Structure formats: C-alpha cells, structure tokens
C-alpha cells in the first residue's frame, strides 16, 4: 500500500456572500455559493518521495495540502496517509507530520524561537536528549545560532523561514508539507533552503510534498510533479517528461564570417542584424542533425543554442490546459 | 481641499458598509458599553442621591456632554487616536508621499462609525437630564452648547495628539498618556469642582476641559461653578481651539523629527 493514497478526493466550500445586485435588500440578503476547490483527485505517493505541486493561483494546491494535513475534511472521496485518514483523530495523526506554510507561522510570534522549540519538545513529547541532539543538528544545518534567542517577530523573512523549518522538523516527521516555502526569499536563502531540503530528504528519508510558484524550486528538488488547475489534477509524472512535452521550440543563433547559404537547412530562418535565428522543433529535427548542416553552410563565427526557460514553458502549459 | 475631505469620508463610509452587519453589531456594542457606564453612574446615584452640591439630573447632564463629545472625537479622530498602529503599519510613510496637509490626511485616513452608539447614549442622557431639569432653552444657550461641543472635540483631539506625537519618538509606556484622554473622560464626566484642588487645576488649566465644558455648562444649568459676566462663558471654550493648535504644532515638529530620523 502506498504511503499516501487519494481516491476521488474532493472539497467544495460553501460561502455566504451579499448579492452583487439588488437595491436595499442587499443589506440582509445572502447568497449561498458552492465553490469546488478540488474535485476527484487520484494519486499515490511512496515513502521518501519528493513531490512538487504546481498550478496557478486558486488551482487547489493549498486545499490539497490542508486535506492531507487534516486541517480540512473532504466533501468527497478519501485519502490515507500511512494507513490513517488525516481528519480522523487529528491530534494523533499530526504527531508524525511537519508543515510549513510560507505565509503563516506555526511558531509563537512573541517568544524567542528557542522557547518555541522548547515548547515543541513538550508538545511532541520528545526526550530532552533526543531533542537537544536534533536541535543542534538543525541549528548547524540551518544556521540558526545567531538568532536563537530573538523573538520570531524580529526576524527577517529568511531567518523566519529557517526557524519555521526547524520547528517543523524537530520531531523528525515522516512527512513534511511545504506550502510556498521560498516565497519572498532572496537568492542565497533560496539556494540554501533547497540544499537543506534535499539533504533532509536524503538523510532521513522524509517524504516531502511541496507547493510552489518558483519553477527553479521544482527543477532543483522534484523529480515528480503534480499539476493542478481549476481544482483538477491535470498531470502527475516526471518533471523531465512534462518539460519535454512543452519544450517544443529551440532557437539557434548563429553569426557567420560571410553570407551563408542556408537554403538546405530544414529550419525556419530569420535575421536579427548580423545574426541568423534558426528555429526548429527538437522532436522532429534533432539538434545533432541540424548542427553539421549549419556548419557546412558557411564559416561560423559564433553560435548559441537557447532552450525555452521554465517559466515560459509553464506559462505555455497553463495556457494550453486552458487555466 | 474640501473635495478631498468629502471624497475620503465617502470612501471610508463605503468601506465601513462593506461589513454592514459587523458594523451594526459594533454600533450596538458601543451603545451597550456606554449604556453600561450610564448604568454605573445610576447605581452610584441611586445609593448616594447627590454628588457634592450636584443633583442626579445635573450629573447626568455632565455625563451626557462628556460622553457625546468624546464619542464625536473618536468618530472623526480615529486616525489620531489610533496613530500608533498607523505608524506601525507604515501607513504614515505613504501619507508623507502625498501632496496634502499631513494632519488632515491622518484624520481622513480613518473613521470610527462604531462610536455612533456611544454618541446616542450621550445625547439621550443630555435629553433626559434637560427634561428633568426643565431647562429654559434660549437661542443663546443652544448656541453656547454647540460651541461647547465643537471646542471640546478640538480639545480632546489635542489630547489625543499628545499620544500621537509620542509615537514619533518610539517612546515606550505610551499608555501613560491615557491618563489625560480616557482618564480625562472618566474624571470629567463629573463636574470638576467636586475634586480636590490638584485634579481641578489639572483639568482646568493644563488640559482645559473645565474651561471648554464645565464652566459654560454649569452656567446653562443655572449653577455656575465660577461666576463670570455672561459673555465670558462664550470665550472660555475657545481654550480648546488654542490647545488644539498648540498640540498640532508640536505634532508637526514631531513629524519633522520622524522624517529626519526615520524611526
């Protein structure tokens, strides 16, 4: 049985709002809206996997994470994590998981973070020596020593995120949820965070489920992605395969010593000043086939090959999936 | 300038109406709360009958004037009264970017329509007391009451400005200034002449609530605290305007300091 398994999982919110139109009756009338946030999601995740969850805003990522953490109960379908249903006996269930929500805090705002960690020791009923060893390890890995005695509210965003991570990993959870963990972080902090997560996944076999808008996070961390849109699971598989599917156009920019004869080259050619831009579909025309033809067309002074960047790819994918 | 004020107030009304039911709840809450204070005063009066040489109805009148002017002050002066949060959220920085007088912008940034609840209770108290006392209203007295309300509101705004000015200097224990604002309300809802000299001097000359409110009112009630020629009762409330101008000047100096240090 897989570690995490979802069957037909879905969640519909009921919201009450004032009607948009209608005169004075807007004062007391309320309309009931049913908003499907997630419908019929089926997936399974094995222990130790590092899975990315992507999709545009409002696609159902956070709802999925909330369902899996037991914060929400589903309106349809079911899911199990390690054989347990998250929303049943929540207190017992959450003992074995960690979660970081990039825009929310799970630590306590106004006490030094070490005090928060002490409190977590007691909340997860950890043995003091075990806790101390783990804390020392995380302090070293996450570089927390400098602000261990500072209240959370005084920390920078990057420091806060590291503290939150530490807080969610002290009890060595089997499963870690990260909801936009790199949001608002600077480049150095992002790189550090990614390296840390990789190591944590590797060293402890922690299963990690990550939602993000940052494609660099995906590339660096996840071999497997799930794409959500309009509350539906649209893709579930390898990140490479996904990129290849949408990475349909490459451009080759070439500058020649003299005017070349490109009539035999099977790519479409445009000029950009002195340079020639060749666009082609790598699926139909292998780069290895194209290159000798270009080289034989004239003396090449300079040549650059450009793939599409990941953000463009994803934007195209969203567009094609009509998100 | 007027257009800016009108437009701001419109916007604030609109945003308050976004949460109509919550707003209504809060107005009722304020109504009940001030009503609770009224009840507390009534409990005291039912046990003791008189406070000094003032009877129950007169006390009620003083209570009503203080509560209603204080409610008006909080209604229109929330930007100043809640200035600490305004600075804390960095909103003051965006105010500095706009080409309008600072204090006006701060005042136009927030309304507190909840205070209508307190205001109604205050008015009701005045009305009940006036009926009981059978005050013979004349144009002169009505005019004086209007002047008292306007000047008292300005005075109270001035008191709130002290606290707001301290926010520029990141002073701790700002709550201390509550002594003058909320403490002033609790104290001066009773006529100031029942208190011992130090308190009376404080609220007559330092924070001139008595000049703005108690002296002219006591004349309207026909029991002047201080006997003056009639015209003087129209002059003493102006102390509120002077006080406000003074505090506004100090506040502006504080704003200047804030811009140079960027606390």
């Amino acid at each position, binding site marked *: 049985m897989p570690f995490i398994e979802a069957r037909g999982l879905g*969640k519909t*919110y*009921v919201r009450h709002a004032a009607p948009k139109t209608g005169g004075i009756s807007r004062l007391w009338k309320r309309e009931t809206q049913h908003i499907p946030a997630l419908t019929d999601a089926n997936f399974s995740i094995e222990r130790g996997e590092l899975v990315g969850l992507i999709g545009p805003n409002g696609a159902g990522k956070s*709802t999925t994470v*909330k369902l899996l*953490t*037991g*914060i*929400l109960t589903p309106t349809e379908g079911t899911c199990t994590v390690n054989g347990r249903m998250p929303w049943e006996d*929540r*207190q*017992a269930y*959450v*003992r074995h*998981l*960690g*979660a970081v929500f990039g825009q*929310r*805090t*799970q630590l*306590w705002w*106004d006490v030094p973070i070490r*005090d928060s960690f*002490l*409190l*977590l020791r*007691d*909340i*997860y*009923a950890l043995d003091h020596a075990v806790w101390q060893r783990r804390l020392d390890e995380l302090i070293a890995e996450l570089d927390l020593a400098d602000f261990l005695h500072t209240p959370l509210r005084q920390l920078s965003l990057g420091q806060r995120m590291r503290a939150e991570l530490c807080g969610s990993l002290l009890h060595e959870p089997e499963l870690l949820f990260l909801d936009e963990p790199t949001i608002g972080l600077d480049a150095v902090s992002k790189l550090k965070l990614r390296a840390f997560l990789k190591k944590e996944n590797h060293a402890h076999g922690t299963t990690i489920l990550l939602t993000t808008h940052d494609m660099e996070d995906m590339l660096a961390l996840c071999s497997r992605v799930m794409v959500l849109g309009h509350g539906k699971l649209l893709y579930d598989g390898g990140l490479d395969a996904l990129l290849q599917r949408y990475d349909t156009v490459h451009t080759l920019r070439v500058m020649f010593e003299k005017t070349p004869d490109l009539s035999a080259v099977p790519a479409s050619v445009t000029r950009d000043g002195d340079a020639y831009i060749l666009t082609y579909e790598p699926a139909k025309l292998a780069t290895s086939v194209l290159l000798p033809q270009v080289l034989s067309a004239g003396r090449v002074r300079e040549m650059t090959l450009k793939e599409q960047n990941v953000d463009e790819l994803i934007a195209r994918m969203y567009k094609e999936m009509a998100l | 300038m007027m257009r800016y004020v009108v437009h701001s107030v419109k916007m604030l009304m609109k945003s308050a109406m976004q*949460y109509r039911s*919550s707003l209504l*709840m*809060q107005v*009722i*809450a*304020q109504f*009940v709360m001030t009503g*609770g204070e009224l009840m*507390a005063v009534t*409990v*005291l009066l*039912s*046990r*003791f009958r008189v*406070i*000094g040489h003032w009877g129950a109805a007169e006390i009620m009148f003083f209570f009503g004037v203080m509560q209603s002017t204080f409610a008006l002050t909080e209604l229109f002066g929330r930007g100043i009264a809640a200035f600490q949060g305004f600075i804390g959220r960095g909103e003051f920085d965006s105010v500095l970017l706009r080409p309008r007088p600072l204090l006006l912008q701060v005042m136009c940034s927030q309304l507190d329509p*909840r205070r209508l609840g307190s205001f109604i209770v205050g008015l009701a108290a005045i009305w009940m007391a006036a009926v009981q006392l059978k005050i013979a209203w004349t144009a002169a007295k009505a005019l004086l009451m209007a002047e008292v309300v306007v000047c008292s509101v300005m005075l109270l705004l001035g008191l709130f400005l002290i606290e707001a000015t301290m926010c520029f200097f990141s002073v*701790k*224990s*700002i*709550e*201390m200034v509550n*002594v003058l604002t909320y*403490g002033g309300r*609790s104290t001066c809802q*009773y006529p100031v002449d*029942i*208190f011992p000299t130090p*308190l009376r001097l404080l609220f007559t000359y330092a924070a001139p609530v008595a000049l703005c409110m108690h002296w002219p009112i006591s004349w309207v009630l026909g029991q002047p605290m201080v006997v003056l020629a009639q015209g003087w009762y129209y002059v003493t409330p102006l102390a509120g305007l002077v006080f406000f101008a003074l505090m506004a000047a100090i506040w502006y100096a504080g704003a200047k300091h804030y811009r140079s240090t960027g606390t």
Partner: protein
Amino acid sequence: MNRLWISWKPYLMVFRLRALMETQYRAAALGGLVTQVFFGLVYVCLYTVLYDGADAAALQDTITYVWLQQMFFRMMFSNDGELTNLIMSGGVAYMMVRPLDQHRFWVCRDVGGRLVGAGMRMLPMLLVQLLLPKGCRMALPDSPAALAQFLLSVGLGAVCLCELSAIVDAINMKTLDRRGISAILNLTMMTFSGNVIPLTLFPDSVQMLIRYQPFAQALDAPIRMYQHAAGLPEWLLNVTVQIAWIVVLRLLGRWMWQQRMNDMTVQGG
C-alpha cells in the same frame, strides 16, 4: 501518573513561557502603573465626595476595594494579542497541525500572563500606598487568614477569568469580529466582576444574586475575602462557588472550542 505528567507538560510549559514573557513588558507595566494610580486617586476622590463624611468605615472599605480593582486591572483586562491575530487572520486553523488541545493550550497561556501581569503591578502599587495621604490609602487585610484566603481566591479567580475569556474567543471565531460581541462581553465581565464600581455598592436587594454570578468570582470574591475573614463554613462555600463556576465554564468553553475546530475543518480557515 507519569503519563498524566507528560500530557500536561506542554501546557505547563506554555504557562511558564507566557509568564516569563510578561516579565519582559516592564515599560507597559510602568505605563499601567501610572494610569492605574491616577484612576485609583480619581475614584478615591469621587467616593470621598459621595460619602460626604457620612460613614467612615464604609468609605474605607470602598477605598480598599478601589485600590484592589486598580491592582488587578491588568489581570481583568488582558488580551492575548497573539491569539487575537490568529483568530482574525484565520491562522488558528494552521495551528491545528500541532498535536494539541487548543482550548487547554490557550487557557494555560492566558492564566500565566494574567497572574504574572497582576503580580508585577501589585507590588509597586503597594509601595505607592505608602506615599499616599492617609485618607486615600487602602486598609490592610482583615487578618492573616483573610490574606491567605484572598491569595488562594485570586488564583482561582484568574482561572475562572481565563475560562470566560476562552468562551469569548470561541464566539469570536464564529463571528470573526473581535470588536462587536466581545466588546459587550468584556464590558459585562468588567462590570459584573466589580472592576467598574464595587459590587458592594449595588442595591442591597440584588446583593445575593450579584455576588454568586460567575463574573464576580474573578475579582469581587477575592476582594470580599480580603476585607472580611470568613469562618470555615462561609469560606468553604465561597471557594466551592468559585470552583463550581470554573468547572461549568471549562466544560462549556471546551465544547465551544471543539465546535469551532470542527467548523474550521469543514469551512476552511
């Protein structure tokens, strides 16, 4: 026994942390001290005028009541900003990823803050008493026994208050509107606990009713014990009433929190 200890450990820890945190707020305590002394003096003056030399003993009792009111103002009127923010921002739902009884957790935290906050203001206020003119000072406790009864009762009062406060929080989670209903509830709490005017000054006809209602257990009950050393049967009655209200409020609050937590898992934060 050991299991019980472990299951209560996080709650005792949060009590301790909150108490320690409260000791950091010295500037606020100083500001509070000035305000409270001022209000105390104003009320003392007011009551002196009201009694008008008629009943010196009753006036002294009322003055003592006023000073105790002011000393415990912070305890009565404390608001856990952290919980408020969590409720307003919907962050309470995210706290559910911790294996905790949220209700017990926040109540314990609240008790820690209130007791220490009260203690920090009580000592300097006692010193201030020495500086006051004779007619304005509070009286000593009725007897050492009265002092002991008072101190125990203050502890129970704080717990009672926090259970009440947790109920208000549960209501806030439902209405998501801290300022409306909770303002009324706070006022009710302040008025009927004796923090606005001494409950002893309410009309004699309602005295029995007013001294045994839940709010009175927080402040009025301890003050009465301070002023009047009760014999064993009466003392037992007073403490039993306090504890009984704690039990009732606790059960109610627990149930309400559970309802809110269930709502959240259905509605989303």
